[in-house]
């Protein structure tokens, strides 16, 4: 299947969108702000590291739960470099199937870099290098034989800024399937309708599928981008702060959508909004300075984190 990344019309556009320039400062893992810990006088009198949940820095594999949920993405001992600058340090993480995992951490901690390793979006940036293994459904995605384009149809991506193509709503959704070889109008119509239903956008656009996607509101455009991703039947959806540019009502709709989509898809979402991470995810991973500090069930991590650094970050004492 000759299919490019879900939110770009073609490789050239994709590259211009992503840029061959180094990732902006806030995405780089170095330099880092010093920890601005503001330890309250009301801190518990106990060992700073409580019982240790799985943590990538200490273990070869990190699974956020003890249950037997199948693993969709298995990351093991991953180090990532932008040229000579190391952005990720020995990260190991397992993402359970059909769940939502939130990646949180201060700016520059490497969470977006990590997200992009999961569908090799970092490949388009010159000078990057990955060590370790990342497996999608037990298949090493960095194996030389892997078709990266096909990979990106299985692992779609939604960005902070909506990226509708300057085409009709219908053609936006149909673009991916067309590139993959679907030509039947009936089939494309079915795919478009299904995807828009899944993205909770159908009722709002069903009577104007030939209208330009650029005329949609910000929240609608983002849902269009999600529908476009869904049109290629991915297994995983990566979301990089998908609601940060949206108003509260649109944000709520996106979050409701994520809640529904997790029944069918594995979702990994980067967010700066702690409450959003708590609302939408079953699992949360905390990154700091390129390291995975803690991963666990969201409820547990937000009520009783194991690591002091995690607690200091989520309570706002630093970051």
């Amino acid at each position, binding site marked *: 299947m000759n299919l490019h990344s879900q939110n770009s019309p073609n490789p050239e556009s994709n590259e211009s969108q992503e840029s061959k320039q180094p990732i902006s400062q806030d995405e780089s893992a170095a330099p880092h702000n010093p920890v601005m810990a*503001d330890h*309250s006088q*009301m*801190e*518990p*009198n*106990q060992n700073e590291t*409580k019982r240790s949940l799985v943590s990538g820095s200490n273990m070869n594999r990190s699974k956020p739960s003890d249950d037997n949920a199948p693993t969709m993405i298995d990351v093991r001992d991953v180090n990532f470099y932008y040229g000579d600058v190391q952005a990720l340090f020995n990260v190991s993480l397992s993402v359970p199937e059909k769940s939502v995992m939130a990646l949180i951490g201060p700016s520059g901690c490497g969470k977006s870099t990590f997200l992009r390793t999961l569908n090799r979006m970092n490949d388009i940036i010159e000078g990057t290098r990955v060590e370790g293994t990342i497996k999608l459904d037990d298949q090493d995605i960095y194996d030389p034989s892997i078709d990266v384009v096909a990979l990106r149809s299985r692992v779609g991506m939604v960005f902070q800024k909506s990226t509708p193509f300057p085409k009709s709503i219908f053609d936006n959704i149909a673009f991916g399937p067309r590139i993959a070889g679907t030509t039947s109008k009936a089939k494309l119509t079915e795919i478009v309708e299904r995807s828009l239903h899944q993205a909770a956008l159908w009722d709002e656009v069903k009577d104007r599928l030939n209208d330009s996607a650029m005329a949609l509101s910000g929240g609608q455009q983002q849902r269009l981008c999600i529908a476009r991703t869904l049109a290629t039947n991915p297994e995983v959806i990566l979301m990089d702060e998908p609601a940060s540019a949206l108003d509260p009502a649109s944000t709520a709709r996106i979050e409701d959508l994520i809640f529904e989509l997790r029944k069918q898809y594995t979702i990994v979402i980067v967010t700066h909004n*702690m*409450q959003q991470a*708590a609302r939408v995810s079953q699992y949360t991973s905390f990154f700091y300075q390129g390291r995975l500090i803690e991963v666990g069930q969201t409820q547990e991590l*937000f*009520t*009783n*984190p194991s690591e002091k650094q*995690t*607690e200091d970050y*989520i*309570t*706002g*004492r630093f970051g």
Partner: protein
Amino acid sequence: MSIHLIRDLENLHRDILSMCANVEEMIHIAVQGFLQPRPELNTELLERDNDIDRMDVKIEEDCLKILALHQPVAIDLRRITTVMKIAGELERVADLAVNIAERACSLLSIDSMNVPEKLQEMAKSSLEMLHQSIDSYVELDSQLAQRVIKEDSVIDEMNRGIINDLTVLMQTNSEHIEAGLHLFSSSRHIERIADHATNIAEDVVYLVEGEIIRHRLKLESHTEA
């Protein structure tokens, strides 16, 4: 961390400590009055109980405000929920102080029975438990809290012993019935102080360790059975 949240948490901490100090003082006065009765005790404690009720409501309102405005997580969230629960426990302890004072006043007019020594010992132990449970909150000392929790069964045993003794006494001599019933109620009130101290201690364990240990022993023994 926002300065508003820091300020609100500090104010809350100050208020709950004030409530702790007031309730501890009330219960001391009530038990002391029980052992050395005085007629104006009731009125004095009723007025203070009204103050405690107002504090309880204020603390709950402040906690809800913090939850709504700041959406705290982790230790801050556990602190807010713990403060709400402790305030509720302290409010009931204050009610018990009033109840004990009422029993003390009733006993004033009855000359037929002295306060049994066991009851005096139980009162002393219950007050010590309450004091330690409050200390464990102030010091965030979960090990002290665990020791308080273990003491509750001792108080329960003492209460059962006192009730048995009073029952025998009342059966032996009907003149003792009125006083016996007041002492019976008093023993139960004092035993309840220990229960509330235990609840406070369990809340402290939750605050510090993040684990809810309430009902654990009962659930475990039910499972084993």
